């Protein structure tokens, strides 16, 4: 093993009395590659009449025995394992490896090369996976709505403590980061507006730009994307690690409903929290825009508010905030569903957490685009 020694050799000699295969040296793991190569070269020229000479054989481990067994075939290996001239330990090794190969190893093949067919196979798998995923999502939405319908009439079954705790974790704790983020994006939008509109002499309309952008799109979109990253992943990790440790199964066997216990409080928490956060994001963004207008364009806060009131109708706000509950529902449902899909391992928790974030951001942006089209057609 670690002692340096003569590498194993296999030589085929042709005496008048018949062919002899002479095995010598160490047949161990460090020499495995060379031995394997030699075995492939010799494979064709060994038949049932070839005598085997093992007198010069040094150390042998399972990998060496495997090569011998492959070289000689199973019947000859078993015969060699009966050979009284070999030490008993070596015979036992050959027999064990020979048996193992006989019983189980018939199916070992070198792996198929990657290529065009494999690529097609993967595309196909991805497509069918996407389809199944969509069906699962729709199914899960159905289960959640059903669970909601079943409990909403029975206040005794409302999980108020859990709901409040989730509102705190997902929404209240997110306020500082969200406000800061929106404030900064508001500043950026105002800067952008003031430079772009200045060439038309219309930099005053930066106020409208910031207002409309935040009320209609940025407020709700920033909030939803932030919560998709922050909350969907948390939901998946929480529920996923419960699933991995069979806690979900325990909930079921105790006669409780995991949807009611775990999913509904989370979905409702986001349904309540996300619109509130959206409002905060809108305000913070507009304040950010106002600060830039004051500093760069010398528009005083009073004038800013005047213009805001005169130009921007309530419709913009309603249109924006109306999207918040939809996004909230989708983010929470995707986060919870991915959690339920976790299987066993830590790896799986990680994979599904990533998947939850990617999916919820994708769904949020997709729905937002659809909503924009719809509002445009409706002239809202």
């Amino acid at each position: 093993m670690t002692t340096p020694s003569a590498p194993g050799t296999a030589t085929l000699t042709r005496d008048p009395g018949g062919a002899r295969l002479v095995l010598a040296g160490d047949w161990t793991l460090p020499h495995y590659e060379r031995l394997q190569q030699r075995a492939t070269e010799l494979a064709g020229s060994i038949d049932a009449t070839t005598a085997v000479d093992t007198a010069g054989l040094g150390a042998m481990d399972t990998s060496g025995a495997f090569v011998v067994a492959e070289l000689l075939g199973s019947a000859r290996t078993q015969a060699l394992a009966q050979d009284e001239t070999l030490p008993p330990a070596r015979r036992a090794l050959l027999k064990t490896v020979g048996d193992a190969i006989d019983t189980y190893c018939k199916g070992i093949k070198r792996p198929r090369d990657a290529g065009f067919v494999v690529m097609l196979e993967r595309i196909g798998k991805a497509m069918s996976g996407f389809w199944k995923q969509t069906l699962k999502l729709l199914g899960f939405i159905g289960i959640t709505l059903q669970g909601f319908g079943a409990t909403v009439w029975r206040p005794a079954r409302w999980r108020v403590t859990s709901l409040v705790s989730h509102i705190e974790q997902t929404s209240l704790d997110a306020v500082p980061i969200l406000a800061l983020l929106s404030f900064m994006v508001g500043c950026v939008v105002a800067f952008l507006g003031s430079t772009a509109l200045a060439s038309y002499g219309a930099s005053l309309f930066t106020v409208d730009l910031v207002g409309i952008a935040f009320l209609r799109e940025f407020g709700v979109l920033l909030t939803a994307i932030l919560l998709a990253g922050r909350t969907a992943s948390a939901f998946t990790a929480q529920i996923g690690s419960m699933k991995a440790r069979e806690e979900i199964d325990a909930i079921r066997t105790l006669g409780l409903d995991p949807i009611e216990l775990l999913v509904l409080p989370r979905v409702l928490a986001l349904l309540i929290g996300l619109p509130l956060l959206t409002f905060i994001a809108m305000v913070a963004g507009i304040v950010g825009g106002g600060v830039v207008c004051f500093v760069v364009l010398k528009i005083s806060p009073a004038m800013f508010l005047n213009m805001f009131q005169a130009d921007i109708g309530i419709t913009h706000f309603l249109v924006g905030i109306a999207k918040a509950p939809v996004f909230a529902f989708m983010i929470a449902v995707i986060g919870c569903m991915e959690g339920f899909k976790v299987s066993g391992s830590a790896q799986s928790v990680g994979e599904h957490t990533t998947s939850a974030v990617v999916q919820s951001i994708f769904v949020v942006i997709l729905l937002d685009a659809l909503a924009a089209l719809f509002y445009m057609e409706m002239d809202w």
Partner: protein
Amino acid sequence: MNAQVAPTPSRETVIEVRGLTNRFGTQTVHENLDLDVYRGEIIGIVGGSGTGKSVLLRTIIGLVRPVAGEVRVFGEDLLALPAERRSQVERRFGVLFQSGALFSSLTVAENIALPLVEHAHLPRVDATRLAGVKLALAGLPVDAGRKYPSQLSGGMIKRAALARALALDPEILFLDEPTAGLDPISAAAFDSLLVTLRNALGLTVFLVTHDLDTLYSTCDRVAVLSQRRVLAAAPIDEVAQTDDAWVQAYFNGPRGRAATRAAHPGRE
């Protein structure tokens, strides 16, 4: 005992524990503990819960640094060796952890091939073929190699972990409760597999277990951990005679008697 499975072990010491003390906070687990393990034997470590069986195993393989005392594996003090030498010694033993500790992101075959690729520097294709042999040695069908650990049953995980422990043809095999959580049939199969492998590969086996049947059917010697040291280390029938309340309760309780009857039919 068990003359049919135990070719008289030579007295070459492969593991030597001297004056070992392990302490966690204020709790002393081992105090001045001595133990020798000889080449080619299967030694069973028994003891009540919390007597530090697993800690002893982890100390010997160098995962726990003892407060005092000395542990020599193949005559080398693992914790004093430079990293390169230590890794060389570590390649000479295989460890089966209590819950398998298979890497969950790799398939079973990749788990077994990993040490072959990393340490023996085999090409991946050859490593995978050899992994198949190890799987077969551990009694798993070859298609189990393509599965992930989370898709295996408890017994299969133990066998797959054993196959990984055997990957580099170790000289010493450390097993932490290998039959815990297995059904009696799987456990018995595991026991006989262990003896077969020991005889075929000339392994030394360090076995932490609670399973009396395993002790009777596989072990050449049994070491009892109690009162922070090794109370007795001898063939099982001698150990069972030790005058100690715990030993008596363990070996002569209802389960102990049943295991004795199974091991020596017609006695008692």
